[in-house]
């Protein structure tokens, strides 16, 4: 059974794909050309809008944002450099995120594997689930003050839900045939859980972690916007109080970079830990 070096069927399909819309406009159809045009147009538009002061003083020009970022790199704000603030936010997320996932993922797995655990935990979980994590901020401040604990608490609350739900659904949606295979090969319940449940639920768990991560960023920002002396949320709220739009936009860009980097890290970890994950959207 030699593997075909060049599959004819694939070859045909590739050609069909190439002949998708706008073949005539050969130059314009190039994806990278379009990307360049789009990004350039975006920055030009941004610059023009800021220069013409469409929003009054509420928008900074791109170069101002870069200058401001450079300045913040050197200066310290509230006793911390820019990287210190980025780390403050990241630090909170790491603590809250790991706490939540360490508790929620096993709990979700247990709920899926045992009906009694499910019957016991589910109602309380369903009661607390619909409250957005941001709504917990006020009560967290009443409980823990405005220190680190309240921020970590909000992140835990926010990331708990998707972690648990995805672990639960990951086990629930396993194809029953896989269990049949293990049983037919003489496996007991323990084999079923270790050989089938965990590996098959892994991609879903990681999807839950990815969702949690983006929620964690929302939570930490909201908490920092409400009250804090450090973190990226502090930077943008400080920009608002000092009415420096360049600082706000710089902070937003940093948040985007940090959030993007962290989600990249998680997907890298996922590729490393579970190479058997099937690609759903390969094209």
């Amino acid at each position, binding site marked *: 059974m030699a593997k075909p070096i060049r599959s004819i069927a694939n070859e045909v399909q590739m050609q069909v794909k190439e002949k998708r819309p706008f073949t005539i406009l050969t130059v314009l159809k190039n994806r990278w050309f379009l990307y360049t045009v789009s990004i350039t147009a975006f920055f030009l538009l941004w610059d023009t809008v800021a220069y013409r002061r469409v929003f009054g003083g509420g928008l900074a020009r791109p170069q101002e944002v870069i200058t401001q970022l450079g300045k913040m790199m050197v200066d310290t704000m509230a006793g911390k450099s820019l990287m210190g603030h980025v780390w403050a936010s990241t630090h909170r997320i790491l603590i809250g995120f790991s706490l939540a996932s360490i508790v929620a993922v096993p709990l979700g797995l247990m709920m899926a594997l045992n009906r009694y655990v499910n019957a016991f935990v589910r*109602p309380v979980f369903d009661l607390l*689930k619909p409250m957005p994590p941001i709504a917990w901020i006020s009560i967290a401040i009443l409980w823990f003050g405005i220190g680190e604990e309240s921020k970590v608490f909000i992140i835990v609350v926010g990331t708990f839900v998707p972690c648990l739900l995805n672990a639960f659904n990951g086990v629930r949606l396993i194809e029953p045939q896989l269990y049949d295979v293990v049983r037919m090969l003489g496996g007991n319940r323990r084999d079923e859980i270790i050989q089938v449940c965990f590996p098959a639920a892994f991609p879903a768990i990681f999807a839950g972690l990815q969702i949690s991560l983006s929620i964690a960023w929302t939570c930490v920002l909201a908490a920092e916007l409400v009250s804090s002396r450090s973190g990226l949320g502090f930077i943008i709220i400080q*920009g608002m109080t000092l009415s420096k739009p360049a600082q*706000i936009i710089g902070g*937003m860009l940093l948040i985007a970079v940090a959030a993007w980097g962290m989600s990249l890290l998680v997907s890298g970890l996922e590729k490393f830990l579970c190479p058997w994950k099937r690609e759903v959207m390969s094209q």
Partner: protein
Amino acid sequence: MAYEQVSVKTPLGLRVLPFASLLLFLGTWQAVIDFGVVPNTMLASPTQVFKLFLVKLTDPNPDGAVLIRHAWTSVQEAFTGYILALLVGIPLGLLMGWFVVVEGLARPIFELIRPIPPIAWIPLTIFWFGIGITGKVFIIWVAGIVPCVINSFVGVRMTNPTLIQMARTYGASDWQIFRQICIPSALPMVFGALQIALAYCWTNLVGAELLAADNGLGYLITMGRRLALPDMVVLGMIMVGLTGVVIGVIIDYVEKRLLAGIRR
């Protein structure tokens, strides 16, 4: 006989357990307040919250509006932003899925903006629009548009290629394929976005109201914290959760009616 016993016995425990756990939860909550384990300045008991709920139905003090008005303001803001997000996001996502030019032009900007949590827009929107309804609608719009675009994009991309090739064989134009094959086949994904976008909108609405508002459920929570009234905070949280669930059920119903004929 034995068969009946087994089939009845197991669900009995399972039937009782949810109620037991709920009662235990509420009972513990009530008890820690009543016996002073947790001071009343930090948490209100369920009965206190319920009492305040009854009072707040008619009494606008101390935060300036009755409960229904807070809820209505929030729902109004959330729905405006939500509908706008659907109106812009779904067509954009569908077009991005099919037309290379639209994708090439819109995608980089979308990818640039997507990782920024909508909450981070709050300071800028306060600059731009003040603390009125426009700013909040903008934040909700930003929050809601992301899942709309992604889901409709993926929906079009997941169209069965055989159908597209068949249509092309029969001489259908690009636009015809898009309209008659890609859109219908993307519909289930698009409708999936409705719920996701709603959840995003609702979460971020609360965030927007915590920071800049003079009305609404998020404002109720903030006022509760400022006045150190834990019963008001908890009431606000419960109302946010409850309203979210009610809206979710309504959207679910609408979705089921609209999708009545479509195979999922």
